[in-house]
């Protein structure tokens, strides 16, 4: 007993308690639900057996039912547009801004920091703002685009089935752009300045310096940013209920919102768990890429 006590005050016991309690909590709140989710996706779950653990085994019925839903491929397509559109937009604009803010001028880092305000705002508020900006008849984006002569008529961003997924994607690009820029700035700041000076002496122009120094030196940063982009985009939920609610006719529905609708609007928890499981496969692939590209720093 004494040995255990003194280990807790002075030795390994201290470390074990510190890590153990937290790990236990996380295991209960993330590990157990994850396993439970797998189990539910193979069960029949309805309102009557929601409170028991012994539910009829359903085999792959839920998976078959989900794949044969008429909107299944539409949701997949939308998820792909949302994910790749968001990542591409956030990354390209974020990278351009990060490079711009590396130039030396007064207040550069302060102004850059202001961009991050989008990232701390509640997702639902961002959704509300963009829902209003993108409104068809009275939205300010249409007014600006008309004023610039880019469009003639009115773009019904939220109610046109061809545009609705892009409405959410635009909002998500705005939301995630600043975070991308910040992480890329950290990477850019880590490139030694004298490399650029040497290249300049050798007569390399701006584009050559970018492709032969910036890109290769940023490889692991870019990998991590893209993987994080995939992870965060698949986590994005709040914009959907705020802007389009997945509509019209599922034309802006994505996997994460669809899973929630199954569980909390149709109360078919087994189907919700099934969609979640399918989505999780993509998340796991992204997280392996992410963990691999951060590994050496994390150990660091």
């Amino acid at each position, binding site marked *: 007993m004494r040995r255990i006590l003194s280990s807790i005050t002075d030795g390994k016991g*201290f*470390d074990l308690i*510190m*890590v153990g*309690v*937290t790990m236990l*909590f*996380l295991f209960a*709140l993330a590990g*157990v*639900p*994850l396993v*439970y*989710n797998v189990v*539910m996706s193979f069960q029949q779950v309805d309102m009557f057996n929601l*409170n028991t653990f012994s539910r009829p085994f359903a085999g792959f019925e839920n998976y078959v039912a989900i794949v044969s839903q008429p909107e299944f491929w539409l949701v997949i397509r939308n998820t792909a547009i949302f994910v790749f559109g968001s990542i591409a937009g956030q990354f390209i604009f974020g990278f351009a801004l990060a490079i*711009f803010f590396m130039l030396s*001028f*007064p*207040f*550069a*880092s302060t102004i850059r*920091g*202001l*961009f*991050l*305000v989008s990232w*701390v*705002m*509640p997702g*639902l*508020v961002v959704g*509300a*703002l963009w*829902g*209003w*900006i993108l*409104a068809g008849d009275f939205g*300010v984006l249409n007014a600006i685009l008309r004023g610039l002569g880019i469009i003639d008529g009115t773009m019904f961003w939220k109610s046109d089935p061809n545009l609705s997924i892009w409405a959410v994607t635009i909002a998500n690009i*705005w939301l995630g*752009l600043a975070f991308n820029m910040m*992480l890329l*700035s*950290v990477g850019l700041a880590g490139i030694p300045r004298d490399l650029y000076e040497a290249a300049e002496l050798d007569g390399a122009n701006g584009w050559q310096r970018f492709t032969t120094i910036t890109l290769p030196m940023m490889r692991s*940063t870019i990998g991590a*940013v893209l993987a994080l982009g995939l*992870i965060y985009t698949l*986590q994005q*939920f709040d914009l959907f*209920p*705020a802007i389009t609610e997945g509509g019209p006719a599922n034309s802006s529905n994505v996997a994460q919102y669809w*899973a*929630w609708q199954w*569980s909390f609007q149709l109360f078919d928890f087994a189907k*919700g768990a099934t969609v*979640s499981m399918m*989505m*999780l496969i993509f998340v*796991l692939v992204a997280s392996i890429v*992410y963990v691999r590209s951060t590994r050496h720093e994390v150990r660091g």
Partner: protein
Amino acid sequence: MTRVAAPKLLLVLALALAAVYLFPLYWMYATSLKGASEIFANPPTFWPREPDFSIFPATWERRTMDTFLWNSLVIATGVTTLTVLLGTGCAYVLARYRNPWIDIGLFAILMLQVLPASVMITPLYVGFNQIGLLDYPRTAVIIAAAGKSIPFYIVLVRATFMSVPSELEEAALVDGNSRWGAFFFIVLPLARNGILVLAILTFMQAFGEYIYSKSIITTQSLQPASVGLSGFLGPNSTDWNGIMAYAAMYVTPIILVFVILQRRIVSGLTSGALK
């Protein structure tokens, strides 16, 4: 990349970029001050013709924002407390050692960080229902949201602890402190700033939490401001000046805290976020 380009010109360009980027925020405040007919003016007026500030108390009253914001405050405080209590010690131990077990722990935490809330909510809801936690919906949301924010907090606070020299702690141990004494009186005070910034960040995120609250809390008087906002928001909303007034009152405190602490938040985030 002409490094000799006039810095003043670049500053103007940077300000213009920031103005374009932050336009949605301006539009929120501008719209909230417009009258019911002016919001539907075509083309829209970029500056409210007759700013009407009475919309703020009116919306506050009509949407029972005091209840909603109080619930947000309760949830955010609970999540932050739980996260700091559980995350700090764990981050410290993970920063102090380097062995395969620590690597496994870190790997597990990084993996937990990536689980989408929309995936976790279904099993959490069913599980909470089975153990009766849904009878205490705000507590249930606090626990669920803390499970989401702890991994993020650990990864970033760990980076802060890595910058505290271990020699100081060893000296304290030699002087007869217990591990607990060294941790609480030497290490924690040195890492105070980083912990504070991340606690604030955790608080701000929990203040805007939506999906768990929406799914778990069904009693309106217990719902946070995000769910309150979703109540009158959707593809067919028309009450836009009311919505923008609500949004403005909801986020202005967050924006103010962010602007004041901007420098620290950015450095706290970038020190460990990516790498």
